[in-house]
């Protein structure tokens, strides 16, 4: 009987140790996958844009939840866009809840290279798109004509892509081109997101904000990390 009891106890001890070992292995694998996942994202997804249909953008709590999800998976630089500027009006509320977030205006260095200890948020609407390009072009024209008035050359052909880039910075459009753009809303369109910034941006339609899911978000981001860009070659 003693032998049987001893064997029984030994069996239980082995099972317990084995179970503990499996749990430790599982946690270890989760850490490895999580670290690998963060490295994949941080390396490739430097700037994310989220387009939300203006009707749905009124749901500030959902927007905050989305931002919290993004923060948790290591996405630190986010541009929020809706056509009518609803998200701009919710800016204060969002920053009150997202205490580790800063506005892009507060970040002096290149926004895609800041330390990952905080999120950077940019709020954009339709006026920052085509209207901003018109303002930037106007700025270049005014400078050019001023130069002409004081004896300089007037050359309308001097306007180049690089000049518009610089002028856009001056009129307040500081954000870089997003790597990935997620569209929340009923239509598969970017709804007027600044056209100057989406040359090679991956665009993914996520459906309505009302039905947003963490799994879908992770899947969209993960799929992006697997994309290979040819850039014309």
């Amino acid at each position, binding site marked *: 009987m003693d032998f049987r009891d001893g064997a029984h106890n030994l069996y239980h001890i082995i099972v317990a140790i084995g179970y503990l070992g499996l749990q430790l292995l599982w946690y270890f694998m989760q850490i490895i996958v999580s670290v690998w996942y963060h490295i994949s994202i941080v390396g490739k997804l430097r700037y994310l844009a989220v387009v939300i249909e203006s009707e749905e953008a009124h749901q500030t709590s959902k927007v905050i939840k989305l931002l919290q999800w993004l923060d948790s998976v290591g996405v630190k630089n986010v541009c929020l866009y809706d056509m009518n500027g609803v998200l701009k009006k919710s800016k204060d509320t969002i920053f009150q809840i997202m205490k580790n977030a800063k506005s892009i205006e507060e970040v002096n260095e290149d926004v895609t290279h800041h330390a990952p200890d905080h999120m950077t948020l940019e709020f954009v609407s339709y006026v920052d798109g085509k209207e901003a390009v018109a303002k930037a072009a106007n700025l270049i024209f005014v400078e050019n004509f001023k130069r002409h008035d004081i004896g300089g050359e007037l050359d309308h052909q001097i306007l180049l892509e690089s000049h518009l880039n610089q002028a856009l910075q001056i009129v307040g459009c500081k954000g870089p081109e997003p790597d990935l753009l997620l569209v929340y809303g009923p239509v598969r*369109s970017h709804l007027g997101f600044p056209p100057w910034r989406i040359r090679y941006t991956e*665009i993914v339609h996520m459906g309505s904000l009302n039905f947003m899911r963490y799994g879908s978000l992770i899947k969209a981001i993960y799929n992006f990390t697997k994309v290979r860009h040819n850039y014309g070659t």
Partner: protein
Amino acid sequence: MLLLLANMFSLRLPIPLEKTLITSLPKTSTTYSAYSGMTRFQVCHRYLSNSITKRGTSVVAFQDEADGEIFVDEDFLEVDPLPVELQPELMPKHVAVIMDGNGRWAKMKGLPTSAGHVAGTQSFKRIVKLCYGWGIKVLTVFAFSMDNWIRPKVETEFLLNLFERSILSQVEECKRKGIQISVIGDTSKLPKSLKSMIANAEETTKENPKFQLILAVSYSGKYDVVQACKSVAKKVQDGLLHLEEINENIIEKELETNCTEFPYPDLLIRTSGELRVSNFLLWQLAYTEFFFNQKLWPDFGKDEFVEALSSFQNRQRRYGGRH
């Protein structure tokens, strides 16, 4: 993409003929034989013929004779009826297409890239034919991006050469069929002969408003915006505009897509599973519905196009008109 267009125009497709009457026309120049590889050309004589197809329809077709074999182009005027699942009143007026995936298609089949472009021309012809017959007014295709100039010079020169020959061979046919050809993009980089050819094609076909085919060659969305701004600056300099009047609407009127009555695509289709616009029509796509399809361009056919149109129409019904 240019290669597939070039091959579309010089395509030889054998179809059964019941009767053939050959009327005399000058022989044309070389056509490209894709299966021979990228650098080989095959001399081909082209005639105009009245042919009777298997279905008994009388058509005017181009007939090519090469190496003793006779090939006749498909009857372009025979169009499939509109599928029942599509409503004619909800058809998009302007469809834009990024034809992507020829190279990958060829690689998958173990064929040279050129074969992918030849196969891609079938898809291109199909879509043009379907758009023409189903009441779509404008089709814009991204033929050659400004970003493609970084490809080897041999390749780009070859592509542009083929494109030039293609325009030459198809202008009269397009004029007869009521297809207006327009080309947008930075033509300053193109060879003089091609520029001249493009100008001639646009002039010859401009009186045909039934359908407009816009070919974006050496084009980029940013270039389009910059050239629009330059045009506006010129107008200010010439006293036609005041600085205070400049706004987005003024810039929009100077974009190269102003060559059409419907400059903003209602639907953008991109094949091969890529999910980006790649510097195509950046300004014009603000409210365009995107349809990204996994199929490679040579495999994109009528069924896939119907799926894209059906998806567009369903969203139109649910969410109303667009800007």
